């Protein structure tokens, strides 16, 4: 099946998300759509999948112009898409989830029938792609990688000839990403086409045949993968934004011998089914401690416990010799600690209040009984200007801003003033590259001023480039602490999934005598 997108244009309000894009997708080929967040890659593919109608241009399937008005139509044409957010019901089994998506699913769903009768077809691809996965397993017990496989099986079950994968490796630990690359190559060899939406060079280099680089809604270039190098792709992808000022991070040696600013001692906390256990970490003033891990391994709970939103079951958190949190007393928030929670648009603003009020709320303890609003409004204007929050009216209700803009506002608010500890959970998630750059710059500047930063991220590349140390959370425990200069992605990946490290790294960096603080954390 050949697909041609011809001169496709899509606008959202004043923003042109796709500007006259033409693209061929041929059978048996892996096309990588490469670009930064907000470059318009997903929008283009969502039009091919029938989620939005294009404002201009045409889609040709096997040389016939076709209107794809709904995902159902796309699926009937043999186009399947795996989204970043999975469409799986966690409380149901693998087989049930497959049946829900199966085009002509049988009326009776007795489990036994699917092992023997012709109905086995439902499970064919599952057995091929994940032979070890029992169909009776509940989806909530699956790892992220397994869930993604299941999504892929669902799409293959629709007999899809064209598979669109939206940032498939962003949630996977490195070794599972490698397995996925192998799978993509195999699918292409079997004659299917795969469109890989990504912003990661590794994805492109590992399995693409052709690379389509997009920037700010335009197609920059289409190149054969064999003719390009990583650095040539980076400059194509970034364009003029290459000239952004570099993000400065103080070298680690600058504070190697200073006493820790934050000591987390033997921290245990529990919330619902989630728990973190035995967390011991020391963070020096000015240090950026990255926290990596597959999502749902306790990152959220650790952050909440540190800033005083969840009571500790055991242990204590000490900040400059003062007890900040302890299991023996109720948790409390502090003006010296700032928190950028995940999904700030939901978790960190009151949607019905104005931006000024939302900014003032962060230091409400210091407000007078009749607050003076003029300085608060000035502060809000400063944040709006520095982080380019749009629309830039401080009197607007927060709910009227988009999630990305609220995120910038919350980051600006939390980085305001003197802070001893900054806990940032996925501060740049979903933002375009320019905004992410600004946020990193501001966050790390705070570290330069002496704050200890605990930075939770799922972007391993960013962690490796900017963090001084990377702690990996797995199953609520710290499964390893790495020096990004002395480890590779696979070491961290193994710690993320709890596999043992091979003999080569039997002498992990944390055992270096030069750094006594790190040893305490191992």
């Amino acid at each position, binding site marked *: 099946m050949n697909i041609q997108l011809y001169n496709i244009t899509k606008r959202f309000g004043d923003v042109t998300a796709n500007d006259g894009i033409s693209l061929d997708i041929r059978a048996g080929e892996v096309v990588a759509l490469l670009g930064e967040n907000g470059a318009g890659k997903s929008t283009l593919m969502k039009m091919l999948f029938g989620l939005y109608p294009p404002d201009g241009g045409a889609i040709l399937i096997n040389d016939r112009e076709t209107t794809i008005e709904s995902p*159902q139509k796309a699926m009937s044409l043999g186009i399947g898409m795996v989204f970043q957010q999975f469409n799986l019901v966690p*409380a149901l089994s693998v087989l*049930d989830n497959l049946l829900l998506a199966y085009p002509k699913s049988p009326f009776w*769903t*007795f489990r036994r029938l699917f092992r023997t009768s012709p109905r086995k077809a439902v499970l064919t691809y599952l057995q091929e792609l994940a032979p070890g996965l029992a169909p009776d397993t509940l989806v909530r017990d699956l790892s992220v990688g397994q869930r993604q496989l299941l999504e892929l099986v669902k799409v293959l079950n629709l007999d899809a000839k064209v598979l669109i994968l939206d940032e498939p490796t962003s949630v996977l630990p490195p070794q599972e990403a490698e397995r996925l690359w192998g799978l993509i190559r195999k699918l292409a060899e079997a004659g299917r086409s795969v469109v890989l939406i990504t912003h990661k060079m590794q994805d492109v280099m590992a399995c693409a045949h052709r690379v389509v680089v997009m920037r700010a809604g335009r197609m920059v270039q289409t190149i054969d993968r064999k003719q390009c190098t990583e650095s040539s792709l980076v400059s194509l992808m970034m364009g003029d934004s290459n000239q952004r000022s570099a993000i400065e991070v103080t070298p680690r040696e600058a504070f190697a011998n200073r006493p820790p600013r934050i000591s987390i001692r033997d921290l245990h906390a529990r919330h619902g089914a989630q728990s973190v256990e035995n967390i011991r970490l020391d963070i020096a003033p000015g240090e950026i401690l990255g926290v990596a891990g597959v999502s749902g391994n306790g990152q959220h709970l650790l952050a909440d416990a540190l800033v005083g939103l969840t009571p500790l079951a055991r242990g204590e958190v000490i900040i400059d010799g003062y007890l900040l949190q302890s299991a023996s007393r109720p948790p409390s928030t502090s003006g010296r600690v700032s928190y950028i929670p995940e999904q700030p648009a939901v978790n960190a603003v009151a949607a019905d209040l104005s931006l000024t009020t939302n900014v003032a709320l962060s230091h409400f303890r210091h407000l007078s009984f009749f607050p003076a609003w003029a300085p608060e409004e000035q502060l809000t204007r400063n944040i709006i200007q520095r982080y380019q929050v749009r629309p830039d009216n401080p009197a607007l209700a927060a709910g009227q801003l988009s999630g990305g803009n609220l995120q910038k506002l919350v980051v600006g608010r939390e980085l305001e003033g003197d802070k001893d500890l900054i806990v940032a959970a996925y501060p740049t998630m979903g933002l375009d590259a320019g905004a992410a750059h600004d946020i990193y710059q501001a966050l790390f500047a705070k570290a330069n001023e002496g704050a200890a930063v605990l930075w939770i991220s799922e972007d391993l590349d960013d962690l490796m480039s900017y963090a001084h140390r990377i702690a990996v959370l797995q199953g609520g425990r710290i499964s390893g602490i790495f020096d990004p200069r002395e480890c590779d992605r696979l070491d961290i990946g193994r710690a993320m999934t709890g596999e043992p490290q091979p003999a080569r790294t039997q002498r992990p960096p944390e055992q270096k005598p030069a750094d006594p603080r790190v040893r305490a954390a191992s």
Partner: protein
Amino acid sequence: MEYFATELLTLLFAALRSATPVLAVVLGEAMTQRSGVINLGVEGQMLLGAMTGFAVASVTGDPWLGVMAACFAGIALSMVHAILVLGCGANQIASGVAVLILGGGLSAYYGTPFVGDKIDTLGNLNHTFVSDIPLLGQFLGPITPTVLITLLAIPAISIFLFRTRTGLRWRSTGESQDITRNLGHNPVHYQLAAIAFGGLMSGFAGAALAVDYTANWVEGMTAGRGLVAVGLVIVARWNPWYALPAALLFGASEALNLKLQSWGVNISPYLLATLPYMIPLSVLMLSYRGLRASGGGMPAGLSVVFQSAR
């Protein structure tokens, strides 16, 4: 010893008979909640069903016609909830309470002329082959058709819910409407069917109470059974099989209450009458601690009901 066994079995079967209306409501409400909708109006639907069933049985002289009319009355009133919730996007709790009060008022108003009427009952298993079964015959005899129908509904619902395509989509609607919609199924269809089924079962429960169990109509005769059933759905973990022990808990405490009164226990009968409500409540509270961590099998979509205050 023999006396004790007889007493126990009598109590058990008495419990089964008195639990039947509650069991029917638990089954219906569990199915409704499995689709992500809470209907607190079951008590009102039950009352309307009881009144309609009794009135039709009294006027036509055929109790079976009464049972069918009760089922329709339950469905009809549940459609008020469906229109408010699915059609107008009203808050489910508020809409449910409105239905509850509406059902109570309607049944009181239209039921007044029938208070004190005598009707034919559905009969029971006495004088059938069952009576000839040695030992058990005397206990099985008083079992009535509504008990049997309700008991048979358990495997039927269970097979439907867990072993068919429609049941699978029903459950996935309750877990997440968004995902179900993304998979190309319309969640509203399943929720509409679920509310109607809950109405049918609560109407039937009303008939089981008025036409079969007591053969009598009194205003407000359900005495909170419908609301207790909503609580028992949690004890039953939204599972039709667990609905039976959960409902028996209510039935047994009610039978025990009558038993204690007949033994002349020196406690105020008003206090004793709270037993059927106190015991399930305590079990609910006790089981809640253990259930909280796992969510207790609650359909994930239900939590949305409590989060949004639209």
